């Protein structure tokens, strides 16, 4: 992928999903839109790969899923953060901050 969009770092997808769920429950498509929005379209998630990640997070107990009705009256699965998910988000945000500071330091940008 040789374009000006950044490739997703391994493991960062989880962080992005948790972050996008921070404010309100959302369905899968919404999450992929939100990630695009938040990153001003710099980051795109291959839409399909979102779902295995969602199931994994659900399995770890960080998010939970409930069937509900979407804006346009369709049946959709909504994901929301669990309390442990919130803690996880905090922890991951902190470690990401540390990592990016460190990498910036190495690159001499700081």
């Amino acid at each position, binding site marked *: 992928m040789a374009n000006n969009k950044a490739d997703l770092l391994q493991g960062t997808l989880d962080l992005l999903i948790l972050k996008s769920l921070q404010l309100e429950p959302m*369905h*899968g498509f919404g999450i992929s839109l939100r990630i695009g929005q938040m990153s001003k379209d710099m980051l795109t998630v291959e*839409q*399909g790969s979102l*779902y*295995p990640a969602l199931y994994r997070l659900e399995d770890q*107990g960080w998010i939970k899923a409930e069937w509900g009705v979407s804006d346009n009256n369709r049946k959709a*699965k909504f994901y929301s953060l669990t309390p*442990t998910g919130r803690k996880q988000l905090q922890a991951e945000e902190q470690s990401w901050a540390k990592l990016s500071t460190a990498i910036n330091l190495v690159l001499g940008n700081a």
Partner: protein
Amino acid sequence: MRTILITLMKPYRKFRSLFFKEQFDAEMADEIRHHVELQTELNLKAGMNPEEARFAALRQFGNMTAIQEQAREVKSWVWLEQFMQDLRYACRQLRRNPGFTAAAVAVLGLGIGANAAVFNFVHTLLLAPFTYARPAEIMRISSQDKRNPRDVRDFSYPAYREILEGNTIFSDALASALLEVGVGEKGDTRRAAAAVVSANYFSVLGVRPAQGRTFSPEEATPGRATPVALVSHSYWKKHHFDPALLGSTLHINTRPFTIIGIMPEGFAGTTALFYTEVWLPLGVYDQVANEATAENGRALTDRTSTALMILGRLKPGSKAADAGSGLQALTATLVAVFPVEQKDRQLTVAPPSRFASNSNDTAVAWVGALLLGMAAIVLLVACLNLANMLLARGTARRKEIALRLALGGGRARIIRQLLTEGFLLALIGGVAGLLLALWSSGLLAASLGRMIPIDLVWNAGPQPALFAVTFVLCVLGTLVFALGPALKLSRSEVMVHLKEHAGEDIVRRRWKFLPRNPLVSAQLALSLALLTCAALFIRSATRAGAGAMETGLKTDGVFLMEVDASLGGHSQKQAQELYRRLTERFGALPGVESADLSTDVPLSGLDFEKRVRRVGGAAGAKSAKWNGVGENYFKSVGLPLLRGRAFTFAEATQKEGPPVVIINEELAKELWPEGDAVGQRLQLENVESTPGASVQNGAVDSAAAKSDETYEVVGMVPATRHNLFESAPDGGIYLPLARGFKSHVFFQLKFASLPPESEAATADLLRRVVGEVDATLPILSLRSFARHLDGNIQIWIVRAGAALFSVFGGLALCLAVVGAYGVIAYSVARRTREIGIRMALGAHPATVQRMILREGAVMLGSGLLIGVVLSLGTGKIVSSLLYRVNALDPVAFTVAPGVLAVAAFFACWIPARRATKVDPMVALRSE
């Protein structure tokens, strides 16, 4: 808390999803459809036409099948589903090759079976728990000499009372004395293990009788002599579960006892290896135990007695290590109350011994470890063999595997599949092995049961530990034999193997000088090590079989009768009188050259020790085995007097004369290294004897000799061998029977000739004579000396070991030869075309044969070489445990490699010959 709950829930949800797979798939499909619809709408808004918008949405979503697959993997136990798939496939594969499957199962069954059987044996011997409640809390308390830690004693009854009162460590403590008693009616007495116990024995052990009651404190008070007894479940079983057993009468040493209770099944008393059959209250100790020891037999209440073993149950929550201060206080009390008996001694606590009262468990542990090691090698050989078989078969399956790789199968998946196949084989082999193990353990137990007159605790039946171990062996085995081939086979180069002659044996070897198949070499090496061990064992067994020569006695034509008058209710005085009359009658029988009796015979399994000191000598006391003998003993057993004379009739039957003693050459050399021992004087002191593996008569320290008496040495005889495993004969002394009497004796009758076929008649004759003299005398055994040696437990161990190792060695030999043959035959078969070409181009059959043989020889040679080195190591360990076999036993070290080399040579030669018989044209057209 929540996290824990979720963690706990996870497997459950995964497991659920296995069964609700369809529902999960449907939900996922719904979700994805929803996603694509939304994206399509978005695309429409962006101005695409409906068709285009939908395709774009799908494209943006990505590879839907792959993603669903990934999601499923997260969500469910895909590997379990795949495992089931693999298992089904493996079943089909195994069914398709019944010959291969049968061979593999047989090889694995033998390997795993040998291990499971040995484990079962070792488990029973060393690991099986005691049969009472919470065994970890039970500790044995003993009195230890501060200067000589090996001098450990039990207690008298007064000491037991003191310990009970001053004790702060235990919640309660029991006292028990193990005895051998005669059980049954007159003329039909058998030996049984009995425990004379305190009233709290059963409550301390935490066991209740299955029927009836236990002893009251009144009954267990010394001197009360209330004749009541409890019996074991096995005793009840021997009486065919007679419902009237409770309340009936049981004869112990011909005295009637009322059975007041029956213990539950599986309760063996305080020992782990054999069952106590009868329990008696401490109140009857003096009647039951002291008959055998009489004369200087000490009453239970005697302060110098050491008859009572004391076991305590630690207070809940405390450990033996915490007992220190409590023990010190108790030691102080005891020393204050018993200043003489407990002088320079201290109390110690330790877990009770698994075997008899005093034996050490380490020697047995060694043998166990050795057996386990040998069995492990058999399994390793079996696994190597199977790995070879799998590799050879895998070469034929290269094409199939290459096809699967070409169609996109992952390597990991293929490895997993091959491992599943191996595991299935291992499981079937494991079941076969388990059956084999159970069967052989049963045989072993039966054979051991014939040797020993007591009930062994031998759980030969299936038990959880055995199943667990067999399963672990299956898993380990799978890893050893299937992982290597799986890794190798899955590394196929797709294009090469999909081509026509994929099966051909084109081996590009990186290390040309290495043997073509290192696994076969390893297998040969290990097999050789096992074979050598087997040969050493067999050599030892043959030597032990010839052990009659090596006891130092001339026992041709000697008949042996073992009796114990005390078991028939005779006092010591009566017994002596009875024995004298019997000796006279025996001596007068036709064909009998001489007849006499002694308290011990070589390889009886009994050991009576005394400490002997040279009078006036500065040297310390030496320990010596003693034997009380009559005046004709040396003549009867063919032991020549080297110096001096034998005992006279008066010396042998009366205690009044001057004390005399005969010693053996070994002791003479130790005590009087400078010269003649005859005419010198020595002094005896009593020591606690350490009984062997069997229950003793309580007669152990009953020697009539007083420690302050000095004895004149009147004769010297050659040393005899009492113990198969001792490296050199011990010093030994012979006391006249009157001074060293035990009611448990062996009569020796020397016949002019005693053909084996007349043995039964002789036994009948002797039984009739005993019946005429005194019908109440219990005959414990009646057989020729040769048969006595056959029945020796140590000889049994060596012979059983030889049988076991012969089986192991034979197995290893078969496996090695089959393995070598299989691999060579297979590689030759695969090279049929190559050989055809060589021969078509004019190669001579002999040249081709030599080529194949050369390859075999490298394999064989390297295997044997490593094997010899291995054998040197294992031989050293084995020979140290064996009877008179050198680690470098020349016979073992020529026969074992020789047999293996010859067998392996034929394994090479037959395929080589067959290869050159092939018509070149047929060979070229093959495949």
